[in-house]
């Protein structure tokens, strides 16, 4: 251990470690990061937190595990992704101690490539081989009528798609902590499952927009001149179009699926990233080390993405956290207007829109709780983004 720490100290502090140190100096940053991590955990474990299938139940003396049997391909995909991401984080943490800094970047890059391909291939395999089950058995009434025993239910024993017209539009009470909606579904359960939609929309949409933005911005910024002139006019045209209305228009033409919404948000919101990267590359391409890289005969790919990008990626990373907040917000707004995912898939925006029921009553719990969830998530991402920006460039904070 002492040898290890000695080695570590002689390696110096990497840029990532510096940023992390600066970021964690503020307790508020850490708090909001924990909020985000909490949201993640909730999203990943949603079926175990809120489910109308019991973990375990004894029917006619035989033991069944309906909850586990009921998990669908999307659940397994999320678990796989979560496990791989967790493993990657642990690996990165370990790299810090036992891999030389010189090759750490390469090792990390290779590991991330492997992890993402595991997730990618795994998800495809899961969707091909894991069957979609539809277990409509009402275990709760079986327990109530004494047909089954030894049932262990999830903390919130309701399914997000389960309707129960007997308990519709109930205010928060002991059984339904946050009340029920117009078809009698439990609001808390739908909130928990809705977090999956929000987070996945946020991450996938931002992933798509960042990749597009970085590649376009890098090319514009590096070549400059005519390429830049034409490219920037296209970017400006994109920016001049009110994106939200464009999205509504496009969404209206395509089937209301989650993937479509992610892709549409992604391909309409890359302009900010492109402009950031372009500006950074303008500055960077005149730097001596870029000239030196060119004079060594390195290929354009290496110069753009190996030598220039890491020096100019910081604003994009920061922008990504704001972008996640923005994408979550757009998704909520789309769902609120009825252009989002189709029910019974739970979405915060869609729940919010149920606040005013068809009878004209104002159901405050249907507005307050999903609204709070959207508010907290968007706030958390924005504040973490801001903390990250300050950590990456302390000058910005002094100016502010």
């Amino acid at each position: 251990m002492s040898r290890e720490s000695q080695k570590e100290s002689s390696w110096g502090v990497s840029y990532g470690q510096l940023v992390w140190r600066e970021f964690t100096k503020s307790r508020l940053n850490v708090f909001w990061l924990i909020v985000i991590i909490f949201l993640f955990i909730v999203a990943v474990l949603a079926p175990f937190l809120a489910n109308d299938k019991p973990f375990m139940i004894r029917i006619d003396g035989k033991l069944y595990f309906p909850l586990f049997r009921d998990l669908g391909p999307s659940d397994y995909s999320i678990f796989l992704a979560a496990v791989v991401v967790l493993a990657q984080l642990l690996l990165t943490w370990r790299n810090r101690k036992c891999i030389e800094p010189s090759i750490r970047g390469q090792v990390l890059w290779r590991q991330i490539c492997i992890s993402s391909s595991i997730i990618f291939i795994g998800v495809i395999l899961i969707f091909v081989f894991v069957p979609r089950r539809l277990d409509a058995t009402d275990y709760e009434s079986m327990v109530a009528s004494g047909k089954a025993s030894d049932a262990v239910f999830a903390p919130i024993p309701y399914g997000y798609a389960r309707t129960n017209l007997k308990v519709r539009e109930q205010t928060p009470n002991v059984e339904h902590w946050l009340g029920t909606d117009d078809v009698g579904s439990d609001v808390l359960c739908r909130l928990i499952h809705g977090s999956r939609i929000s987070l996945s929309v946020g991450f996938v949409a931002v992933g798509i927009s960042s990749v597009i933005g970085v590649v376009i911005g890098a090319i514009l910024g590096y070549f400059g001149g005519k390429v830049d002139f034409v490219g920037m006019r296209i970017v400006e045209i994109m920016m001049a179009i009110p994106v939200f209305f464009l999205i509504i228009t496009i969404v209206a033409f395509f089937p209301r699926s989650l993937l479509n919404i992610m892709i549409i948000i992604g391909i309409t919101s890359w302009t900010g990233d492109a402009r950031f990267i372009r500006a950074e590359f303008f500055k960077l391409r005149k730097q001596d080390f870029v000239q030196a890289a060119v004079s060594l005969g390195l290929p354009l790919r290496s110069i753009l993405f190996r030598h220039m990008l890491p020096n100019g990626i910081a604003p994009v990373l920061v922008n990504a956290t704001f972008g996640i907040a923005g994408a979550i917000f757009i998704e909520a707004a789309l769902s609120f207007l009825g252009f989002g995912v189709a029910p019974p898939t739970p979405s915060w925006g869609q729940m919010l829109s149920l606040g005013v029921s068809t009878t004209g009553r104002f159901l405050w719990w249907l507005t307050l709780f999903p609204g709070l969830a959207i508010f907290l998530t968007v706030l958390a991402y924005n504040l973490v983004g801001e903390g990250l920006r300050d950590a990456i460039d302390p000058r910005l904070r002094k100016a502010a």
Partner: protein
Amino acid sequence: MSENGILLSIGGLSVFFFTEEGVAKAVQDVSFSIEMGKTFALVGESGCGKSVTALSIMRLVPAPPGKIVSGEIVFKGRNLLTLGESQMRQVRGNKIAMIFQEPMTSLNPVYTVGNQIAEAIRLHQRKSTGQAWSDAVEMLGKVGIADPAQRVSEYPHQLSGGMRQRVMIAMAVSCEPQLLIADEPTTALDVTIQAQILDLLDELQEQNRMSILLITHDLGVVAERADDVAVMYASRIVEVGDSQSLFAEPLHPYTQGLLKSLPRLGFSGKRLQTIPGSVPEPLHFPSGCKFHPRCPTGCSDKKCQTMEPALREVRAGRCVACWHTKGYEEK
């Protein structure tokens, strides 16, 4: 010229910058050649076009606004100006390498020095990552960095200016180029380090038998190290010759002025001479000989004011661009 043969020859090179204020003629009709294994020095004040000449050889002149408008740069029988971008990449780093003036900013801050040296080795010599890494350690040792195995995994900000310049040299020399362009390699360093770096270049030159194009404004450096010297003034070469005879007997009034403005050993008491006036701006060059407004001999001469003198060989191996060279010519 000699038994060594010519590695690089530049003929009639002109590089213009097309700016909004007008056309800046940074380099005009520059010709010289570098022999194998020799050091060729390009001397001149700042802004006279020596760095642009060097960048042209690498085809690194920022375009736009810069453009190589005419001339040829022949490296081992191939005109570099006609090569495609991918062929040029084969030359850069591999055959011709370059060291820049500012060691503080010439290394990528996000990678360790070993990583940066190894990348060039991997690329040009098709070696495995591990092999390239150990080569990088070896190169660092060669350029005189103490404890290379330790330093190789450090980041540029952990090294001093002199060490960074050594790393730059290691990077440039790692692929054993035949020509090393050193663009003011010592300007940003303090005096004691300067000598060390120049000694190192000499040593590497001997080991690898490479040619060096040394670009500098430091005449002291040139006198000691260079085999041949070209003096540039306001975008043109005004005098070329082997360094010994050039320094012993400068022929062009500008070269004479430069040498007179240098302090010499044993020289004391009197003020140093200076060349009156200042370097003309590339956008507003004077007519005729560009040196005539500052020239002690040619001010009044009509010819100097209206016609630009071409570089002419006035003696074996000595070329001068001046109308007043009659007295120097060998009969």
